[in-house]
């Protein structure tokens, strides 16, 4: 029995109830929950790497009538990623939210969001995915509105409405799929789907819903205000994990479930939108006045890179080259998750210590907050894609795949995007290292500065040097091609 | 036989509902509209309940329908009262 597969979902859910019931103990309960979730995810990843994909038919009903949980290399990798980021941001939050009331409000919602993320990564059922998307959306909105500042609430409300529309588009696709194929189980659907109008339109609806949630250009307009006005730990997770969750579904649908349905033309369309996202997002990030806004626009750009892989994957024949490109895509997504959460947390530290996050007034920050500025620099290395970060390897593969398939169009896009990224990162560092008068040394709080630093190190060093292991784990079984576990 | 009788009751109820709705749309003033709506609709509902009960031909069902009728009566009476007294106050102010 694979009942342990439920743990990454049920631990945060159960502990969120405990945090609700014992509001004064919310922080220890929350940290304990995140630690336990991390352990469960690590165990799951280890099991999957040893024994291959795992399946659990909930309630003992055959998948189709019942709901199946399913874990393979891709989902367990993302599970591990989200557990690490959530733990780091959670530890950071204990310094960020100091009033007991704030903590009591924060923790149950935070754990509910973890529940949603992990339920989404493990779900093997189309309608169940809709429910997890809604849980993710609602808990993320509630978290983004914490603090109750007018701007944050307004952004949260717009985020909520667009998120609901995205979910509805997804649900419309689910409806059509059920009408045409009579099942909701992903593995069953994979065998049933055929390239015909019902599948095309259903897929188009679901993909558009997910694109809205992933904030692909030109559907990105809601992201910068929502991410830039939320509390710092929440921004970190919104940028690092929440948009990635929708992207994960997109990837799984595109490459696995609807593999026979997608067309090269659609892949090109996604690639072109991705290219525009890279250029537009990087440009706006360069022009941003506030550090958090910069980070948010940089998310738009970084997500764009992920979409450049779609036309390449469509052109590459199945085999080693395609596997390598796929591995690069996952490496890119992971690196961005760690680097961007580090960037948001470091920004949060600066915002709290300095009282603002205006880039031009960062002077003296390097002297006052050396660890945090170092974190910014490390995260910047990963965002630009310099060695030894994981993004460097990923971009390198992106380049070579673009050249190998003759899709030269992407080469200047990647180059320009990287140059712009370098420009905005060095712009921050330039101001941060500028001398300023009256700067006093401040002993910053370890629980605030260290989580960000660790995330940045993960992004630049571990994912860079450990990429071979990741590659070997993820690519052969990433999309397990429907092997029954 | 009871079916036919039930159908007649339901047809009659339709007349009352129609009259009530037309009254709501055409009569001037809140009070007149309320008057038309509550009176006609309650009678209409009563006839409908009797008709449906006859067609259903089940005592338990008939009792349930009766309960529905009573509840709607109470609710509409109180709602009408509230609307009327509100309208009275507004009327005095303006």
């Amino acid at each position, binding site marked *: 029995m694979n009942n342990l597969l439920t743990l990454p979902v049920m631990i945060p859910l159960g502990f969120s109830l405990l945090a609700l019931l014992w509001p004064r103990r919310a922080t220890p309960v929350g940290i304990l929950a995140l630690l336990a979730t991390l352990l469960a995810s690590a165990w799951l990843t280890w099991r999957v790497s040893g024994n291959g994909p795992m399946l659990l038919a909930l309630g003992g009903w055959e998948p189709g009538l019942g709901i199946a949980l399913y874990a393979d290399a891709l989902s367990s990798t993302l599970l591990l990623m989200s557990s690490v980021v959530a733990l780091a941001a959670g530890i950071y939050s204990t310094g960020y939210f100091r009033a007991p009331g704030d903590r009591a409000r924060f923790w149950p919602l935070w754990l509910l969001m973890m529940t949603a993320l992990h339920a989404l990564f493990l779900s093997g059922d189309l*309608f169940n995915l809709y429910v997890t998307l809604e849980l993710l959306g*609602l808990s993320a*909105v509630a978290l983004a509105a914490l603090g109750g500042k007018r*701007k944050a*609430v307004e952004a949260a409300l717009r985020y909520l409405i667009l998120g609901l529309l995205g979910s509805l588009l997804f649900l419309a696709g689910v409806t059509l799929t059920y009408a045409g194929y009579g099942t909701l189980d992903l593995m069953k659907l994979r065998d049933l789907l055929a390239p015909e109008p019902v599948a095309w339109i259903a897929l188009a609806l679901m993909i558009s819903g997910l694109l809205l949630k992933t904030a692909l250009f030109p559907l990105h307009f809601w992201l910068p205000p929502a991410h830039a006005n939320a509390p710092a730990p929440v921004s970190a997770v919104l940028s690092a994990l929440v948009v990635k969750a929708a992207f994960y579904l997109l990837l799984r649908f595109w490459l696995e479930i609807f593999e026979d349905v997608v067309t090269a033309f659609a892949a090109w369309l996604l690639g072109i939108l991705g290219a525009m996202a890279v250029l537009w997002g990087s440009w706006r990030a360069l022009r941003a006045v506030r550090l958090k806004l910069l980070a948010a626009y940089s998310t738009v750009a970084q997500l764009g890179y992920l979409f450049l892989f779609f036309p390449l994957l469509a052109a590459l024949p199945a085999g080693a080259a395609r596997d390598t490109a796929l591995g690069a895509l996952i490496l890119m997504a992971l690196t961005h998750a760690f680097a961007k959460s580090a960037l948001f947390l470091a920004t949060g530290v600066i915002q709290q210590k300095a009282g603002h996050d205006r880039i031009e007034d960062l002077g003296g920050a390097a002297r006052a907050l050396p660890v945090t500025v170092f974190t910014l620099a490390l995260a910047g290395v990963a965002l630009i894609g310099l060695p030894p970060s994981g993004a460097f390897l990923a971009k390198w593969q992106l380049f070579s795949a673009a050249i190998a398939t003759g899709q030269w169009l992407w080469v200047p896009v990647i180059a320009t995007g990287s140059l712009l990224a370098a420009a905005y990162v060095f712009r921050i560092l330039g101001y941060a290292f500028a001398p300023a008068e009256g700067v006093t040394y401040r002993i910053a709080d370890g629980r605030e500065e260290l989580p960000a630093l660790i995330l940045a190190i993960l992004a630049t060093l571990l994912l860079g040097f450990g990429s071979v292991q990741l590659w070997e784990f993820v690519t052969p079984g990433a999309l397990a091609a429907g092997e029954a576990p | 036989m009871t079916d036919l009788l039930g159908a007649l009751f339901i047809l009659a109820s339709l007349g009352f509902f129609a009259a009530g709705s037309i009254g709501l749309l055409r009569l001037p003033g809140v009070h007149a509209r309320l008057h038309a709506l509550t009176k006609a609709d309650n009678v209409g509902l009563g006839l409908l309940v009797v008709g449906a009960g006859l067609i259903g031909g089940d005592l338990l069902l008939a009792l349930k329908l009766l309960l529905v009728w009573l509840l709607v009566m109470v609710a509409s009476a109180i709602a009408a009262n509230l609307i009327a007294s509100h309208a009275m106050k507004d009327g005095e102010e303006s």
Partner: protein
Amino acid sequence: MILTQLIFGITGGLLFAIGLRSALVRESLLARILAVNISGAGVFLALVAIAYRGLEETPDPIPHALVLTGIVVAVSATALALALRRRLEEADDE
């Protein structure tokens, strides 16, 4: 039989599209919340119409259960949206 499914399925599609458009173009937040609800109702309608299998046969219970879940999710989202909107109208910190 199938005609009933088609009538409500297509109606559902239209409601879905009408709601989606209003939710994107309307300025008023309350109107957008209404629009999201109507759009959702459209999808639910299409889903329930799939389940209908004629007057004699019991309908497929799966879509019914899905829509029941959907209705609760929709009211949760509506409640949160309205609370945010209220907070927005009250907050005056900028």
